[in-house]
């Protein structure tokens, strides 16, 4: 009973104190600065519609800064906000014109050594870095549209950049024409969900030394590589789309020095290389869709103990390539559209193994110019001969139970 009374009193106090928090509406940069100086923790500042010239503003109190429809903050070539207090909310503001610097990572919003900040429903246009989170845990970045204008690599920063920041939630954002759409370095226990990254100069999403993270339901289009996961452990990748990452040195998913991770229900469509695995250990790759890629899976010989099953490989130029003669990866129960075997006992599993590595893919890896022979009769014969009597391709790399119908 006493406990209930205490609860009620606490709630009432909470409601009362709510009234104490001030909400100030401002119309220009000067009144914004005054309001910021006079504000206390818990206050809100509403920015009326209009263009505000603001740069290098330190926000050191736990306040909310909310824009009206049409509120624009122009950095005039400099950085805009630095948030260094916990529980700050920045909402519904258009940021623009944060200049390029080779020495500093100038950003529209920099969250510095704090926690629990929330950046939502904002727009960023022509910002070097849009949101830069440094040593700040538990930040939420949602529903932002981030549109870079950089066409050259050196003048581009990352749209969302996290460094040494854990427990982040990055959701429903759209990033375009930056260096990386989302960049994570030394970030753990974070969720990246429902974002769209397109036309970024490097990667749509980039993990460096970032363990125990999940990314799901994202779409990566037209980047140099859709996603790069490097030097990371225990990354869960579910139901993402990797589309049209096409060109030389382009990949849907680039995996380098990664272990103990799962990759499931993803779609790889029209990428130069669907997945490139370099030093990948102990991955579970299942139920993915590979359609119309140049190379569906390219696996370096330093990758092992990976399980690749129940995937659909449909109309890829090369289904599988590997370097080296040995293979220590499990490949079984996949559907291969190029499978030419039969199923006499009608159990849904092909009666002869499928060998997805073609001899020609070997020739190409040593002599790239030979791609010109791709559709020639000679190559067809060569591949057929190798399939019947394997000499160069790894004997062990075959799907012993290929599926007759797609999963």
């Amino acid at each position, binding site marked *: 009973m006493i406990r209930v009374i205490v609860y009620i009193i606490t709630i009432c106090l909470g409601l009362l104190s709510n009234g104490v928090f001030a909400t100030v509406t401002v119309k220009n940069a000067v009144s914004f600065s005054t309001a910021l100086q006079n504000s206390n923790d818990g206050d809100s500042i509403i920015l009326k519609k209009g263009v505000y010239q603001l740069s290098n503003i330190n926000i050191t109190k736990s306040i909310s800064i909310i824009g009206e429809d049409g509120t624009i903050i122009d950095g005039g070539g400099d950085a805009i906000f630095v948030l260094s207090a916990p529980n700050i909310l920045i909402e519904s503001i258009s940021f623009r014109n944060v200049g390029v610097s080779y020495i500093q990572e100038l950003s529209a919003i920099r969250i510095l050594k704090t926690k629990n900040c929330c950046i939502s429903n904002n727009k960023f246009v022509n910002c070097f870095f849009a949101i830069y989170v440094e040593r700040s845990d538990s930040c939420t970045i949602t529903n932002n549209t981030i549109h870079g204008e950089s066409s*050259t690599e*050196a003048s581009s920063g990352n749209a969302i950049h996290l460094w040494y920041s854990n427990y982040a939630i990055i959701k429903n954002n759209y990033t375009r024409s930056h260096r990386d759409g989302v960049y994570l370095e030394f970030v753990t226990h974070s969720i990246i969900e429902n974002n769209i990254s397109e036309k970024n*100069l490097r990667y749509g999403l980039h993990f460096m030394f970032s363990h125990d993270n999940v990314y799901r339901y994202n779409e990566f289009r037209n980047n140099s590589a859709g996603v790069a996961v490097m*030097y990371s452990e225990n990354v869960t990748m579910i139901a993402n789309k990797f589309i049209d990452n096409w060109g030389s*040195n382009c990949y849907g998913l680039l995996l380098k020095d990664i272990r103990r991770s799962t990759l499931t229900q993803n779609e790889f469509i029209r990428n130069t290389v669907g997945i490139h695995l370099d030093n990948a250990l102990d991955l579970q790759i299942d139920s993915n869709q590979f359609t119309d890629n140049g190379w569906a899976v390219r696996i370096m010989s330093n990758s092992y103990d990976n399980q690749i099953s129940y995937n659909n490989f449909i109309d890829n130029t090369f289904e599988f390539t590997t370097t080296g003669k040995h293979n220590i990866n499990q490949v079984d129960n996949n559907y291969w559209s190029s499978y030419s075997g039969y199923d006499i006992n009608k159990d849904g599993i092909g009666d002869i193994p499928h060998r997805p590595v073609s001899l020609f893919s070997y020739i190409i890896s040593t002599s790239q110019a030979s791609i010109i022979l791709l559709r020639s009769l000679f190559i067809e014969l060569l591949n057929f001969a190798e399939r019947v009597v394997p000499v160069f391709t790894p004997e062990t790399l075959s799907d012993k139970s290929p599926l007759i119908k797609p999963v």
Partner: protein
Amino acid sequence: MRKLIAILLIICSCSPASEPIKYGTDECKLCNMLIMDSRFGSEAVTKKGKVFKFDSIECLVHYYLSDNISESEISMLLITSYTNPNILINAYDGFYLISKSMPSPMGEFLNGFSSKEDAIKFQVEQGGDIYNWEELLNYFKVNR
């Protein structure tokens, strides 16, 4: 005439030269990443004239210290100064600051400078330790 051509050929083929790094197009020899940040690009040139490009000084050092290449094969090692992007300088003459508050592309917090004064300037602001090339190699040998 034949001699002249022979001499010309020898002269042309025997001068290993560095190549400018095409940021955003070239891939790092060690980590496969596109080389993007013009403050960190590095390069190794062999005596035969082969050029290996790297996205960071730490990738160059790791590559150099691994068995990929032997010291006797190297003609030039080049790095970029943090304060002077896009321009390659000799790695042996550089000074290196490892400071936990200065990120570098491959997570080693390693930034190169062409002069010790520049390195000290950043050390005063950001903290950390300064190394010359030999000391840097030793640091990586110990901390691998």
